[in-house]
């Protein structure tokens, strides 16, 4: 049952991705590819899963070190290395297609590009972004020119080097697979062994240096493992998109957690899942480039994380804000009603009694529009804070009146505190109190009470410390 459900989902995904092509793979094959049982695609899928896990780990540090763009400059700088390595291998009498050889070339120019960025930054007054922009485009340009020239070499034939730009996982021989496996596992190990050192480097470089950690060398190690991921990802993901594979899992993970350990774990999982789904899909559907599909899967996970991430997702935060806004609106309304009722009472010494007031009095009390007041009243009615009265007048329920006196009391305690301890003029205190009082919890209120203990009868609502403007008092 579950198996069939998964099949349908995967097929739908593959189907919609192929956008109407009649090239539907059969269900059995789909199942085999996704569960790594298909011999032809198994290596590709396993290697992209590993690549994703590694990219997730390394990308987290890259992100926290704020070197995301450095990764981009690096990946583009690998391109001329690929072309150059190809030429060298042909001149040496080989075919020029050996992956290890091409990757060595890529590593060399990739690191060269990074060093050049650092050199430009340190010797001129140019900033990081400009230095990276220059290196990125110049190196990529050199790469394009080189590859074009290689194409015209008689021995070369259709070189397929352009595959490194967008990535294709279709062709992978056993030795390539092993190479990627070893480098990926090695890179994971390095980043886990240096977990504490890299964390410190990313968080507080100068403290790290003061403790004697070799920050420059640690930075180089970080860039080296980024280079390693980039280079082994060139074939499957391509140099244009590898940066997304490094950054997206880490940024998506950040929406869910506030802890580095969890961020690394989640980022690795997101990277791995993107690699797995992306490579499987592109293996099933002809002409679907691996790199693009992987990045799209990662982007989909990112989107979900951004919207619903527990810690900082847009929706949970929006809900929190909405809750606070509702609370603020409710408290403003209740206090307004209380103040109007209070002002209509001749004897200040008497306890305030709950009386109905007119809608107009409420409208005039604060700078509210009729629609706003209407909305606030509707909410208050839904919360049983209002009693049903004839139209045009407003009367609090018992619960509402209790809440109103509590809210007003908090507001005035806070105002008194501000006047006494924060040197705020009584005429200004209302606005400042407004901003904070809605987040006062019981603990703060009891602290306020003890601070202002010397006041008589502190359990009642204290009189307002400033003049309250009442254009028209209540009806009685």
């Amino acid at each position: 049952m579950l198996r069939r459900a998964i099949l349908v989902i995967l097929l739908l995904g593959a189907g919609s991705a192929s956008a109407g092509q009649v090239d539907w793979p059969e269900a059995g094959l789909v199942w085999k590819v996704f569960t790594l049982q298909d011999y032809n695609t198994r290596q590709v899928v396993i290697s992209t899963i590993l690549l994703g896990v590694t990219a997730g780990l390394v990308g987290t540090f890259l992100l926290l070190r704020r070197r995301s763009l450095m990764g981009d400059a690096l990946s583009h700088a690998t391109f001329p290395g690929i072309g150059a390595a190809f030429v060298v291998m042909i001149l040496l009498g080989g075919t020029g297609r050996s992956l290890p050889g091409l990757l060595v070339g890529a590593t060399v120019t990739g690191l060269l590009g990074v060093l050049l960025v650092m050199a430009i930054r340190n010797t001129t007054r140019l900033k990081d972004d400009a230095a990276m922009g220059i290196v990125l485009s110049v190196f990529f340009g050199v790469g394009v020119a080189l590859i074009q020239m290689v194409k015209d070499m008689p021995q070369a034939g259709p070189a397929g080097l352009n595959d490194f730009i967008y990535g294709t996982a279709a062709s992978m021989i056993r030795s390539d697979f092993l190479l990627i496996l070893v480098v990926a596992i090695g890179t994971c190990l390095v980043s886990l062994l240096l977990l504490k050192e890299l964390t410190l480097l990313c968080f507080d470089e100068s403290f790290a240096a003061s403790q004697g950690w070799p920050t420059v060398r640690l930075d180089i190690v970080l860039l080296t493992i980024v280079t390693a991921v980039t280079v082994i990802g060139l074939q499957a993901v391509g140099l244009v998109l590898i940066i997304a594979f490094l950054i997206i899992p880490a940024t998506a993970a950040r929406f869910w957690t506030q802890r580095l350990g969890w961020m690394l774990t989640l980022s690795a999982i997101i990277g791995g899942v993107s690699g797995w789904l992306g490579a499987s899909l592109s293996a099933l559907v002809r002409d679907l480039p691996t790199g693009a599909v992987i990045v799209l899967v990662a982007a989909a996970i990112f989107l979900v994380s951004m919207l619903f991430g527990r810690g900082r997702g847009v929706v949970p935060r929006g809900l929190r804000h909405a809750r606070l806004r509702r609370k603020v609106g409710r408290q403003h309304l209740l206090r307004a009603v209380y103040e109007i009722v209070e002002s209509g009472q001749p004897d200040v010494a008497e306890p305030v009694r709950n009386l109905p007031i007119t809608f107009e009095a409420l409208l005039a009390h604060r700078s509210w529009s009729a629609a706003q007041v209407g909305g606030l009243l509707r909410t208050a009615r839904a919360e049983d804070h209002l009693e049903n009265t004839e139209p045009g007048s407003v009367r609090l329920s018992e619960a509402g009146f209790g809440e109103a006196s509590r809210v007003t009391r908090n507001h005035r305690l806070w105002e008194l505190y501000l006047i006494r301890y924060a040197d705020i003029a009584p005429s200004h205190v209302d606005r400042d109190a407004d901003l904070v009082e809605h987040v006062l919890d019981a603990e703060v209120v009891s602290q306020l009470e003890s601070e202002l203990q010397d006041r008589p009868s502190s359990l009642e609502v204290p009189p307002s410390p400033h003049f309250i403007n009442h254009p028209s008092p209540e009806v009685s």
Partner: protein
Amino acid sequence: MKPFVDPPVIPVDGRPEHPDDLPLSIHDLTVAYHRKPVIWDIELNIPEGKLVGVVGPNGAGKSTLLKACLDLVPKTSGEVKIYGESYKKQRSLIGYVPQRESVDWDFPVSALDVVAMGTYRKIGWFKWVGKAQKKLACEALDRVGIAHLGDRQISQLSGGQQQRVFLARALAQDAKVYFMDEPFAAVDAATEQAIVALLKELNKAGKTCLVVHHDLATVKRYFDWLVLLNMRVVASGPTAEIFTKDNLQKTYGGKLSLLDDVAEALRHVGR
């Protein structure tokens, strides 16, 4: 406060007799950024067990002086000795509190994680933070009065609490000499009192603390030794002798906007 004991007489310029006993001895130090000197010809000797305030106007090179002592900026010339040896050899004796704004407080770590960073050097390469270090970090947090906030993500702390986290991290370093860059900058009154109490406690334990400070009104109460800095060392010595109208004018001289501050400070001195 303990009664003031006369410190050993140490010439401000010129070398002391036994520099090996001094927690900090600076000779002929100059630091320049882009060929523009920030601090010049610094001669400074700090006796052991002092609470030292480093005071001067903005741009006087206070932070640079600290960073030069810690090998964080390249020295154009001169040398810095910690107990007679170079900083490289004496690192384990040093605790450092950088300026609070120098890091990104949105970083995904808890207060306890940050404090534990003070123990990293002792843990050594490749090993992760263990139970023993976490316990040390807890104790350090307790000493600055925020043990209950250990699990908080650091962006959810107030400015004062963040500053205390930094101090706790330096405590976890278990040092003999502490360098603190503006620990009192933009903190609440409660934190300021907590920091002062901590400084006195360190002082009692015989530690030396170098503290970059900018509030002239509190200098006399907080520090028993003073370094007045404005690109050069204007004066250095016991606060009671050094914190004079004349020296302050030399330090802040020419900066008219600061005259009011100085006047204010002098009123405090007069009390």
